[in-house]
C-alpha cells in the first residue's frame, strides 16, 4: 500500500519535470513570437527572403543571416566529421590501451574551452594563417565562385574552420561511446569470417551507424547556435555568397552584436524575430535528424544503439 503511494508520487514528480520541458519550449516560442509581433506584422514571410538589413531605414530581412548560419554549420560538419570519426575510431579500436584514457581526456578538454577564447585565438592565429593560405591559392582556382573575393582572412572559411574545431570533441566523444558499446561478439564474428582489421572496424561502424549519425547531428546543433567565436572571425557582413573568402554573418551573431543598441521598437522586434527563426530552424534540424536516424534504424532492424542525443544550443534571445 505504502509502496504504491510512493510509486505514484514518484511518477507524478518525474512526469511533472518532463512536462516542464515542454512548457519551457512552448514558453520560449510564445515569448519570441510575442516580442517580435511588430516585425512579423510588417514584413510577414518576406522577412525570410529579404536581403536588406537597414536599421536606419527600418527595412529588415533575414536571408543573409539564415544563409550564413546554415552555410557555416554545414561547412563545419563537412570538415569536422571525418576528423571526429577518425579520432573516435583510433581511440576505441586502434590505439594502445595506455593511450586511450589521455587521448579521450584531451579531446574532451577541447569542449571545455570557452568560445571567446576560441574567438580570440581565431583573430590572432587562425585568421592570419587563413589569409596566407588564401593568398597562396593558385589563380585558376581563385576564379571559382567558392574562392572569389579579396583575401581578407576573416570570412566564411575561417568561421567554418573554427566551428569545425569546436564541434570535433562533441562528435568524437559520442561516436567513441557508440563504438565502445558495439558488442565484442560482432567483431569476433567478423574476424572469424576472415575479416581484416579494417573490415572488422567497418562492421563495428555499420553496427553503430544510427548512433554515429546522432553524434554528427549533435555537432550540427552546436554549430548552429555558436555565437561568440563565429562573430569574431566571420566578418559580420550580411550578404549571401558562396565564397569562402567573403565576410558573412550568422543569426546568433547579429543578435549578440546589435541587441544592446537597438533603440527603435521595430529594430528590436526584427532582432527578436531572428531569434524566433533560429529557434524554428533548430527545431526543424532536430526533426530532420530524428527522421534520418529513424530511417537508418528501419533499414537495419536488429541494431541496438545508444539513443542519439541532439542538443540545442541556447537560442540567443
Amino acid at each position, binding site marked *: 500500500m505504502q509502496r504504491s503511494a510512493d510509486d505514484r508520487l514518484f511518477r507524478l514528480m518525474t512526469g511533472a519535470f518532463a512536462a516542464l520541458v515542454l512548457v519551457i519550449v512552448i514558453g520560449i516560442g510564445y*515569448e*519570441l513570437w510575442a*516580442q517580435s509581433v511588430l516585425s512579423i506584422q510588417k514584413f510577414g514571410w518576406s522577412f525570410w527572403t529579404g536581403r*536588406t*538589413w*537597414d*536599421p*536606419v*531605414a527600418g527595412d529588415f530581412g533575414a536571408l543573409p543571416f539564415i544563409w550564413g548560419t546554415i552555410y557555416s554549420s554545414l561547412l563545419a560538419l563537412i570538415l569536422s566529421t571525418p576528423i571526429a570519426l577518425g579520432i573516435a575510431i583510433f581511440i576505441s579500436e586502434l590505439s594502445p590501451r595506455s593511450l586511450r584514457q589521455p587521448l579521450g581526456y584531451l579531446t574532451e578538454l577541447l569542449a571545455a574551452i570557452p568560445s571567446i577564447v576560441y574567438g580570440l585565438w581565431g*583573430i*590572432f592565429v587562425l*585568421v*592570419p594563417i587563413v*589569409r596566407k593560405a588564401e593568398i597562396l591559392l593558385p589563380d585558376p582556382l581563385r576564379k571559382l565562385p567558392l574562392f572569389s573575393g*579579396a583575401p*581578407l*582572412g*576573416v570570412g566564411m572559411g575561417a568561421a567554418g574552420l573554427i566551428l569545425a574545431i569546436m564541434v570535433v570533441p562533441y562528435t568524437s566523444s559520442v561516436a567513441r561511446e557508440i563504438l565502445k558499446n558495439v558488442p565484442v561478439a560482432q567483431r569476433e564474428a567478423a574476424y572469424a569470417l576472415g575479416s581484416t582489421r579494417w573490415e572488422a572496424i567497418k562492421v563495428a561502424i555499420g553496427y553503430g551507424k544510427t548512433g554515429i549519425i546522432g553524434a554528427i547531428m549533435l555537432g550540427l546543433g552546436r554549430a548552429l547556435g555558436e555565437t561568440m567565436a563565429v*562573430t*569574431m572571425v566571420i*566578418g*559580420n*557582413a550580411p550578404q549571401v555568397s558562396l565564397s569562402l573568402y567573403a*565576410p558573412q*554573418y550568422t543569426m546568433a*551573431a547579429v*543578435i*549578440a*552584436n*546589435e*541587441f*544592446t*543598441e*537597438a*533603440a*527603435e*521598437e521595430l529594430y528590436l522586434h526584427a532582432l*527578436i524575430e531572428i531569434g524566433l527563426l533560429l529557434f524554428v530552424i533548430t527545431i526543424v534540424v532536430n526533426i530532420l535528424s530524428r527522421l534520418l536516424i529513424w530511417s537508418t534504424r528501419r533499414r537495419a532492424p536488429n541494431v541496438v544503439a545508444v539513443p542519439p542525443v541532439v542538443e540545442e544550443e541556447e537560442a*540567443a*534571445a
Partner: protein
Amino acid sequence: MRKTLFVILAVALAGCQQSETTTTTGTAGTTAAAASAAPVRLQGAGSTFDTPLFSKVFDAYQKQGGAEVNYQSIGSGGGVQQVIKGVVDFGASDYPLNDEQTKAAEAAGGPVVHVPVTMGAVSVGYNLPVEGLRLDGPTLADIYLGKITKWNDRRIAAINPGVQLPSTAIAVVHRADGSGTTFIFTSYLSAVSPEWKSKAGAAGSVKWPVGIGAKGSEGVSGQVTNTPGAVGYFEMAYANLNHIKSAVLKNAGGRFVAPSVQGAADAGASAANNMPADLKAVFVNAPGDTSYPIAGFSWIIVYQNQKDATKGEALVKLLRYTVHDGQQFAQALDYAPLPKPVQDLDDQAIAKISVAGHPAQ
C-alpha cells in the same frame, strides 16, 4: 528577453558594487563633513564609451561626500530605454534621443534634458607602410562606399603629394555591434557626402555598403593591426593603446588635423557658438582651423521634472559636479574636457530641472 536578463545581471552587479562602495563611504564618512547627509543612491546606465570617465568621476564625487552612484555600462541604446522607463535615474548616451524616443519619454515622464558631459574624438586608423596619411571627408566616404578600392587611387594620391602609395587593396573595417562611435563616424560621413547620407545615413548601426564588421573597438583595432591595407575607425584611445597609425583629416577650415584631445575640444568649443537650445548638437566637421572633424558629445539624459525630492537634488548636484570638477579627470583618460562655453550651456540646462515641482537648489 535578453534585455531583461541584462537588467537582472546589471542589478546583481550593482548589488556587489554597492556593498563594496558602502564600505568605502563608511571609512570616508568619519572624516567627511557631508557624512551627515542621508546616503542617497543614484542609478545610471548607458554608454560604454563614458564608463572609464564615469568610474573615476563618480568615485571622486562620493569620496568628497556626494551621493553614491551605480553606473552600468550596458550601451547607449539600453541606457536611453531604461531612463525613459524610469528604471534608472539617469541615462548616458553617445547619441541624442530621436523623435520616437522623445515621444516615448514625454508620454512616460515628461520632457527630458540633454546634458553634454564629455567629448571624444574618433580616429581613422590604417595599416600601410606610410606615415601621416592624409584623407579628406569625401575621399573617406567613397572608401566606405566601396568606390575607392586601392590605396594608390588617384584621389588619395592627390591629397598626399610626394607620398609613395602602395597598390594594396583597401580592406574596410567597421563596427559590427551598434555603437556611439559608429554614430559619430557615420554622422561625419553623412555631413561630408550626400551619397553616404542617402545610401547609409547616420546611426548607431547602419547598412554598410562594403567591409568587414568587427566586434567592439578592440575588434576593429585588432583587425586593422592584423590586415595589411585595412582602414577602420575607433575611439582615439584605442589608436594610442595599440600604436595604430591614424589618418590626418582635412577639417571644415581646409586644414589637415591629426586626432587629439585638443582638436576635439576645439571642435566642441566652436560648436558651442551655434548650439541648439536642447543641446542635442552633433558637431562633426566643425568649423575652426584646429578643430578635429570627427568628434562628438556624450550626454547624460534625465527627466526635466524630478518627482523624488531627495534623488532629484542629488542628481542635480551630481550633474554640476560632473560638468565642472569632474572634467579634471578627462584628459588623462583620453577624453576632451568640456570647454567653458559648453559648461555655461550645461549650467543653463541643469537649471531647467525641477525637483518635486520646485527649481533645484
